[in-house]
């Protein structure tokens, strides 16, 4: 980030190498001497956790690819064989399938942290947008991977998601046939999904490198949102944050291990242990938990095309968030109104997830009975609609308006001052101060 490199090669070989390929210098400047705000809390450890998640998924995925057969007649059996017959296949497979869930858990916490502390605001817009690209690539990769075991949920999930794109071709099948390589989800589809599932993580890794690069240009945000002003505000990344991140990674691995060893299928769906059958749709098609909020948005809108647009829009809106939020105060610590709307936003996302998992016509609570004696009341569809409205309202109405009407609280003069309790700028001054 800031300042010239302080790397000093110590041996003859590193001096020689440094003049030819300064890779040790790059590593030193990026992960050892990198000046990092000294007040980062544990919400900031999820970047490191996500790095570990990616490596875990790639390593286990490469191993699984050695045993998996991407053919409609063998795919299901080959996954069962990995679980039962391949030495430690059960372990690798469970790490990979639960690893996807852990990856999304970490990425959602990472994103909520960014939303709360305003990490998307200038000068971190590109950093944030690259993160949004990463999220979409992760979703695509996870969806493609979920199809590979070729169970009922795999097959019908693939059918439903690919049919979303039929909203754009007017029912002619031009887009869906092209996606499928046939007239329905079939062997050609499984083959290409396998190929792309292997490819996308490496594209993901590339975008993550850009994400980290962008981070190292502008530097970390921090819980106060106040920019780094002097050397006194920072500590070197190593050993302070290497140790803090490592500790968080260990805690995260404990949670991960609980799932892998004690409830490996808790996050999956029982129907995916039935081989794919193109003639029989399961009673309920439910995506993996991490896609449920978006599924709820899709179903909240009665028109297919508009539903699809809303679902993709709920992701695309994140890209323009840096320009929707008009407040120049980054951290919601100092935004007394916004922080409540943020809390509601988190609840809204959780409720959408709940709606996505439930039948839209079922009742959240009953208010009475109709003439035929059926229970009536507040349905999950209504709940999904309210929350869909809030989801978009948060980005399109609340954040743009709040920045104009909210009076932020006094912010510390510097990170150093916030940590050591120094002079504070006055409340009235804070409102008119430019972005720091």
């Amino acid at each position, binding site marked *: 980030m800031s300042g010239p490199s302080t790397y000093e090669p110590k041996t003859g070989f590193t001096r020689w190498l440094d003049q030819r390929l300064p890779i040790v210098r790059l590593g030193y400047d990026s992960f050892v001497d990198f000046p990092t705000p000294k007040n980062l809390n544990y919400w900031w450890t999820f970047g490191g956790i996500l790095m570990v998640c990616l490596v875990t998924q790639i390593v286990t995925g490469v191993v699984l690819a050695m045993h998996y057969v991407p053919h409609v007649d063998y795919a299901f059996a080959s996954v069962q064989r990995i679980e039962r017959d391949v030495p430690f296949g059960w372990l690798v497979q469970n790490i990979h399938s639960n690893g996807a869930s852990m990856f999304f858990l970490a990425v959602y916490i990472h994103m909520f942290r960014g939303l709360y502390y305003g990490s998307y605001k200038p000068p971190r817009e590109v950093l944030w947008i690259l993160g949004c690209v990463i999220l979409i690539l992760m979703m695509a990769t996870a969806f493609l991977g979920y199809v590979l075991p070729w169970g009922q949920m795999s097959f019908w999930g693939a059918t439903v998601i690919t049919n979303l794109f039929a909203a754009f071709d007017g029912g002619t099948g031009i887009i869906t046939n092209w996606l499928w390589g046939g007239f329905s989800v079939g062997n050609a589809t499984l083959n290409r999904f396998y190929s792309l599932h292997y490819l996308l993580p490496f594209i993901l890794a590339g975008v993550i490198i850009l994400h980290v690069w962008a981070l190292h240009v502008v530097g970390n945000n921090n819980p106060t949102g106040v920019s780094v002003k002097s050397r006194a505000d920072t500590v070197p990344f190593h050993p302070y944050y290497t140790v803090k991140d490592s500790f968080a990674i260990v805690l995260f691995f404990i949670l991960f291990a609980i799932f892998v060893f004690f409830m490996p299928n808790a996050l999956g769906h029982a129907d995916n242990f039935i081989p794919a059958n193109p003639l029989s*749709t399961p009673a309920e098609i439910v995506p993996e938990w991490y896609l449920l909020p978006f599924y709820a948005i899709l*179903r909240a809108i009665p028109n297919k095309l508009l539903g699809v647009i809303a679902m993709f829009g709920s992701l695309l809106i994140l890209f323009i968030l840096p320009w929707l939020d008009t407040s120049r105060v980054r951290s919601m610590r100092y935004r007394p109104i916004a922080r409540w709307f943020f809390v509601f936003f988190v609840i809204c996302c959780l409720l959408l997830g709940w709606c996505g998992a439930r039948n839209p016509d079922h009742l959240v609570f009953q208010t009475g009975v109709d003439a035929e004696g059926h229970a009536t009341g507040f349905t999950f569809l209504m709940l999904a609609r309210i929350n869909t409205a809030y989801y978009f309202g948060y980005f399109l109405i609340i954040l743009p308006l709040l920045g104009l009407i909210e009076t932020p609280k006094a912010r510390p003069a510097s990170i150093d001052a916030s940590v050591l309790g120094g002079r504070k700028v006055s409340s009235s001054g804070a409102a008119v101060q430019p972005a720091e």
Partner: protein
Amino acid sequence: MTDASIDTHDGEPSRRDFIHIATGAFAAVGAGLVAWPFIVQMNPAADTLALASTEVDLSLVDEGSEITIIWRGRPVFVRHRTGEEIAEAEAVDISTLRDPQTDDERLVPGPDGEYRRQYLIMLATCTHLGCVPLGDGAGDYGGWFCPCHGSHYDTSGRIRRGPAPLNLIVPEYTYLDDSRVRIG
């Protein structure tokens, strides 16, 4: 392009500008031509297309029942409708429909030009997101009902309620003789 070319040509495009544009255009066309095979390779392959038709003997379907056959890897409903179902389908005011079609528009005449209105042939995939609807009079309109997101179809397979945008799709088919049809 550059200041120098503007100076020497009084703002008129120079020969160099022409070469730049021509080369750029040529490269763009070349890139498109190279990309095309890589895009089109994803379409259904020749062997998949070769399996694209199937024949069915309608006389094997009893009145009031339906069979599901596989065509192009996806299920197709063949229903032998009762007189009541046909009457119900024809009685609908099509101006009230989301995807207006008369019952006859959803049928194909036989070799003699007559409609065999008892036989209804449609793709068994919901036009919402591709699930297989339940048949045999399911749903509120006596036709089909998709359990995935609750689309109701009538006895002509037309969408009546729910999120699906279109009627159940009638595939291309022709009558080979009185009771046999070829789908595809």
